[in-house]
């Protein structure tokens, strides 16, 4: 006859008790810390609510001529979020491209290419990102050869009076697109183009399954999308036109084109290269994780080295690379907060300024943490969805 233990001695019950005690302990500790904070703030009559978010900002934001300092602080936070996003997005794209190229280059059989990639990786990977950012800011821009506004370097288009590039120590102007006409209609057609491309993709896939002919669905889909967009662009008489960087009369302000600051470029380039060195190692490790026999078999099928990478090694290797790369992306986005040292108006920098201007620190930091949390969770979510879609499916 099996021994029936008492209900309070069952593993399930005991573990539930322990878990509950732990949760309660954490809650109590949190409550105690929170109570402490509020009590201390109240004692010194520092506000404990979030009303400061609706107070006027009071200070101007770098590289945001349009920002009115009387706008409330939450608007300032939004500008910071936008700047962080801009640095993070461009940084992630650049880091991915450079990282992939360098990672593959490290495994090249060409001695020079492999060594150069190694120097790049070892150089950036073993330097703190802050140092890299400061190096770009001071060595490249501040003490570099570029002139100071208003004596910026205007690089003219050949045979024309307009610039295509304006260079200075603090601000760099590049051409941008300016909206001309029918932009709404144009974007509706672009969305239709995406739908059409998806249709073509499905059609090519089905045809491939039916007839066994090569589908080339990427080429077909991209081709049909490009066709729709180009025809729409021409038919609407050019909804967008190039806006070349030009300077105002006193020479200090860019009145057209896209103006970007030395701070932004230092931050984005430094973080992109720093993170690229890590991504390169991830890529290299993932490629090495693909059994050598795969590559050899592909060689036996007379595939060229490029085809071997494109069709056999990378599809298997990059699948392994996705989870560690998500980490690198998260790191890059969080590292944009280092832009503070070079004066980039990211959300951390602006929050610090606002705290310095008599706004309550605990609440401001809470908002800041919330912003980064949302950024990181969104990145994780998107990339985890992607990761699931490329995972090996057992059939």
């Amino acid at each position, binding site marked *: 006859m099996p021994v029936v233990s008492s209900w309070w001695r069952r593993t399930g019950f005991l573990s539930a008790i322990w878990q509950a005690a732990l949760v309660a302990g954490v809650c109590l500790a949190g409550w105690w810390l929170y*109570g402490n904070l509020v009590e*201390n703030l109240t004692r*010194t*009559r520092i506000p*404990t609510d979030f009303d400061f978010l609706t107070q006027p900002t009071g200070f*101007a934001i770098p590289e945001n*001529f349009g920002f009115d300092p009387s706008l409330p602080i939450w608007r300032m936070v939004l500008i910071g979020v936008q700047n962080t996003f801009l640095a993070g997005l461009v940084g992630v794209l650049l880091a991915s491209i450079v990282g992939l190229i360098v990672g593959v280059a490290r495994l090249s059989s060409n001695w020079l290419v492999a060594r150069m990639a190694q120097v790049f990786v070892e150089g950036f990977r073993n330097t703190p990102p802050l140092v890299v950012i400061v190096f770009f800011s001071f060595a490249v821009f501040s003490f570099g050869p570029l002139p100071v506004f208003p004596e910026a370097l205007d690089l003219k288009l050949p045979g024309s009076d307009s610039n295509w590039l304006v260079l200075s120590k603090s601000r760099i102007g590049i051409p941008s697109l300016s909206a001309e006409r029918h932009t709404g209609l144009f974007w509706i057609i672009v969305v239709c183009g995406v739908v059409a491309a998806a249709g073509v993709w499905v059609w090519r896939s089905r045809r491939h399954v039916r007839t066994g002919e090569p589908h080339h669905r990427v080429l077909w889909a991209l081709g049909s999308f490009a066709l729709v967009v180009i025809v729409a662009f021409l038919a609407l008489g050019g909804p967008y036109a190039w806006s070349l960087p030009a300077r105002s009369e006193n020479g200090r302000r860019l009145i057209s084109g896209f103006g970007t600051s030395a701070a932004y470029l230092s931050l984005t380039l430094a973080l992109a290269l720093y993170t690229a060195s890590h991504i390169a190692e991830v890529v290299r490790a993932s490629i090495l994780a693909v059994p050598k026999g795969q590559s050899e078999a592909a060689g036996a099928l007379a595939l060229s080295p490029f085809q071997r990478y494109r069709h056999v090694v990378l599809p298997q290797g990059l699948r392994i690379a996705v989870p560690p790369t998500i980490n690198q992306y998260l790191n890059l986005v969080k590292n944009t907060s280092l832009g503070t040292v070079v004066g980039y108006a990211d959300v951390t920098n602006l929050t610090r300024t606002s705290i310095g201007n*008599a706004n309550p620190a605990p609440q401001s930091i809470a908002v800041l943490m919330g912003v980064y949390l949302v950024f990181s969770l969104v990145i994780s979510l998107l990339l985890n969805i992607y990761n699931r879609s490329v995972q090996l499916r057992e059939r």
Partner: protein
Amino acid sequence: MTIRRTVLLSAAVVVALVAAACGGDDDATTTPAPPPATDAPADTAAPAPPPATEAEPPPTTEDTVALSQAGGRLAEVLDRGSVRCGVRDALPGFNFLTPDGEHEGFDSDFCRVIAAAVLGDAGAVDFVDLATSDRFTALQSGEIDVLVRNTTFTASRDGKEAANFVYTTLYDGQGVVVPASTGITDLEGLEDANICVAQGTTTELNLTDVMRSRGISFNPVTFGESSEARVGYTAGQCEAFTSDKSSLAVFKFEIEAGGGDEQFILPETISKEPLGPAVLDGDTEWAQVVQWAVMATIQAWEFGLDSGNIASATGDNPALGRFLGEEGFDPGLGLPSDFAVQVVSQVGNYEEIYRQHLEPLGLPLDGSVNDLWTNGGLLYVPPYR
């Protein structure tokens, strides 16, 4: 089935425990519940006045006394045997590190003044190096006893930052410096210009205010510290640099002495910048101690006492006698009766401190607003009696 039951059970227990924890608020002895914002501070011995309106009741004397007894910063300092002084190690003239690692400057001397007054030893100072944006947090958290860091006395800092500014040690104003070669002579010449500025400072706010009121657009290039903003300006990231005029004079002096380009400080003074030590709100006793320690340097100057002659000085008039602590005069501030003698003999009077640190850097004392009231300046301290 078992798993399901376990989950349910643990959920139930958690809910019960949390409810118990939250229910415990009612007797305030176990859990430190956050007092509602409308209430008076929790430590008050007297019952809090009923919160009739949303506005906070003004602090009563009882509150302050209760708090100062509870906080007891003076007792803490005496017990510790040193004064924790919040400074910045990169402000030439105000506080910087000598090659021997000594703190030298106007601000660091006032830290020593406080230590000499309270502890009788000008060397009993722990200097805490603080970044601009961290200085008030350090004060609020009690990490430092006093902030002597070129900090401007403003209403929001007095109110929202819970800082209690004592006697102003330097009356300053904000200015703008440009390279003389640019030929810029007024703020209008800086339309759309990049201007280097330290973030989170009144300097940044004043600049924004004055430019807005005159309709001049500009681009602030912000740096975490004034010293970093200077490097940015020197490197050519900006066409102008703004800071307190005292700092600008020091800066101009250093650049030109180092063989750099000639600098021009715009004649306009765009703000009032009273700089002085600050302590945390709510401890009147400690605030008074710091206040009188600082004022002793000015009173000594008025009496003509300096570090050279104070040892031999005698109270030939009663006011001087009280100041020197003769006959054990004690106004009840919590300071030793000979504190003024300690301050002046170990550190010096105001004039000595100023002339030693600021005059060599191009900031003359005579005839400035920082002269004694008897010479037409603003320094005027209440009588010590």
